[in-house]
């Protein structure tokens, strides 16, 4: 099948950027979306044109490297699917596709479809952990954890940090990402000692990174490749409110 691709091309962070049109010819429906771009890049290279830069690594939908907008939808049309796992059999001959990078001021574009998501790392660094130095752990079965709690923690822990939630949100909020981490650790007994501090610091850091506020629109949940549930945002808000009222001043808030 043949497709028309309109792709965002931007040389570097300071370049203004523009859409450029390419013809993808003879696309095999069994290819993944990124394999289709690989083939196009090979052709561009042989023509002496700069290949399209995009982030990708595992191509199994778990590393969270890949992701861009396809016709305005983060990771494209298939639910719960990263762009590396999206196959061309879901498109049809003659389709026109617009490929753009994640758009958010907290995710500046580095080149073409590649953005800088290190704000997510700084959010985790602000409190997305349990402070347990290596070697100081009790036996793994010392604390029984109800299966349903552990399963719910796992539902949130599955977040791959791809940033689709931010890209899909009209406010560019990172609430699904921050909520997922706060909920994951908050569901487990190991996460309790730092629960309040975690909520305060993570929310403050997300604000400092210029992610927007959540207004419960739900676009994030709709595009999340791991199906993270909107309820994690409610859980985060509960923890944040409770901590704001009751936390002692030594629960340090990020600058």
């Amino acid at each position, binding site marked *: 099948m043949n497709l028309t691709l309109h792709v965002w091309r931007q040389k570097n962070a300071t370049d203004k950027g523009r859409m450029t049109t390419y013809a993808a010819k003879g696309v095999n429906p069994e290819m993944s979306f990124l394999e289709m771009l*690989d083939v196009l890049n090979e052709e561009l290279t042989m023509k002496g044109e700069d290949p399209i*830069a995009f982030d990708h690594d595992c191509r199994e939908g778990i590393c969270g490297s890949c992701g861009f907008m396809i016709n305005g939808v983060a990771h494209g049309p298939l639910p719960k699917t990263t762009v590396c796992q999206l196959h061309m059999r879901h498109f049809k001959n003659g389709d026109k596709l617009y490929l753009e990078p994640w758009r958010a001021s907290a995710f500046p574009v580095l080149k073409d479809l590649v953005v800088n998501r290190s704000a997510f790392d700084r959010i985790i660094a602000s409190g997305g952990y349990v402070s347990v130095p290596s070697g100081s752990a009790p036996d793994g079965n010392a604390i029984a954890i109800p299966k349903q709690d552990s399963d719910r923690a796992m539902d949130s822990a599955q977040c791959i940090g791809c940033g689709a939630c931010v890209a899909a949100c009209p406010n560019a909020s990172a609430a699904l990402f921050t909520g997922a981490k706060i909920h994951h650790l908050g569901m*487990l007994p190991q996460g309790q000692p730092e629960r309040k501090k975690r909520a305060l610091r993570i929310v403050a850091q997300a604000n400092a990174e210029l992610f927007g506020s959540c207004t419960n629109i739900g676009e994030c949940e709709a595009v999340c490749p791991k199906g993270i549930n909107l309820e994690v945002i409610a859980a985060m808000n509960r923890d944040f409110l409770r901590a704001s009222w009751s936390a002692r001043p030594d629960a340090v808030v990020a600058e």
Partner: protein
Amino acid sequence: MQLDSRVPSGPIEKAWENYKFEMKLVNPANKRKYNIIVVGSGLAGGSAAATMAELGYNVKCFCFQDSPRRAHSIAAQGGINAAKNYQNDGDSIFRLFYDTVKGGDFRAREANVYRLAQISVDIIDQCVAQGVPFAREYGGTLANRSFGGAQVSRTFYARGQTGQQLLLGAYQALERQVDAGKVEMIPRTEMLDLVVVDGKARGIITRNLITGKIEAHVADAVVLGTGGYGNVYYLSTNAKGSNATAIWRAHKRGALFANPCFTQIHPTCIPVSGDYQSKLTLMSESLRNDGRIWVPKKQGDKRAPAQIPEAERDYYLERRYPSFGNLVPRDVASRNAKAVCDEGRGVGESGLGVYLDFADAIQRLGKATIVERYGNLFEMYERITGENPYELPMRIYPAIHYTMGGLWVDYQLMSTIPGLFVIGEANFSDHGANRLGASALMQGLSDGYFVLPYTIGNYLASTKLEKVTTSLPEFCAAENGVAEMTKRLLSIRGNRTVSSFHRELGKLLWDHCGMSRNEAGLKEGIQKIVSLREDFWKNVNVLGSGEELNQALEKAGRVADFFELGELMCRDALDRNESCGGHFREEYQTPEGEALRDDVNYSYVAAWAYPAVLHKEPLTFDYVHPSQRSYK
């Protein structure tokens, strides 16, 4: 060269404990005076960087991905072994040690493996404390599943995303240290050379992948946790960015490369569908717990699987290996799949595939249980193939998955260059000629959380380290070398892309040094690799400049190293005139077609100096006596 493994004397159960007492310690107040570089942020590198920072060392950690959370450990699916014996089914440290040495076909160092089995129990505790949501029973205790090569249930798991959850645990510990100012995390940066001063590893040269800036970094010790080299085959289950450049360039600086031909072919991957294919996707080995593997009895039987009656199916693993059945180790399962396909009984369009069938399991356990155990894997299969595995059996075929070989290290995980430590898949140490499932995560975390943080202290406390700066000639020369190579790759402007060379190299290696090997094929393979490499340096086309994000340039440097490594793999495979584990030489097999080891002549670690000079570390087995592996 005399290779000293520095294994502590005395009984194996006490070796690690004795070592920990005898090693020299760095005073807590002095730890902050030491700078350590960690390259790689996966289970090994990430856990090591976090732990050393917790101890007080200053750590600089590098990764080529945009975040340390994306290291390829994240893709591990099935689980992590530990000798907890929570299932009360007869497991013990000795049994895990025994299974691993036997599974590795008696080509691993006993003392290392024993230590690994001992530490396995601490890893689970550490990860649980970090908040890793392992699967649990209704009573709240940790759940286990079975894996290949073992008859006890000792694998801990978090659905089909165990690697992800363990890596996020290590990543969060690492980010905590970033916040504390003890780790400087440098993502999107690639190590391109090792700097050796006065015979000791004292720094690295890196390239910033966004700006192209080439920089030198000084340290008192350098740790490589950069993973395996499976991508030398182009098609593998590795992430697209996984590469051998860090270990290969360290090798060229003097670190010996051990057992390069020991590569693992994973039996359960989704078969190749076309020439454009960029990578292969693994279906976790845990599927073999409940799935049954079969092919039609008749050659060329093209009927749909449901039309083939039970009597005309060959459940060949259950037939040939009644006691382990579908749970034989990976090398055995892979070779058998190849054998039935070679007989013309393979399934799917290409004939390169076998069925992995869940119909019996769904009938026995109900669909809900199967969804809970493997739901995400089934979804992934359907996403890729467009077929529903609840209704049709999966089609699987072996693919390159893991490399047991790597830089040679002693018991302290130090390479032949003092001050250069190598951890996780990047070293060769614990899996011999074949790794058992759920043991890679165990080894990466064992090295990072619990071994290296001790042994590196011993090195620092017992070594006199002069002050060095990046203005030393050694640093300048290395930096210039890197800049030269970048310039050279960009100046060729030939008529073939980097990927097309890589694909051809991969095909050559798969054909000549893949699932089975023979003398003539290996010799031919070496010749072809050498001539393709010459062509690469004349005809590769890398556009753009070195001062920008240039993904083709990154790839070109990595493929250049794969060419050299691929040749060494063939030389090693040619030199090892026996079959063991993942290394199957057609000339050396039993009448039933099983691997035929030669313990008299080949019970050694083949450690290669650059360029291709062989040294040997003899292996002795005092606790597990080498026997022909039998899973019948």
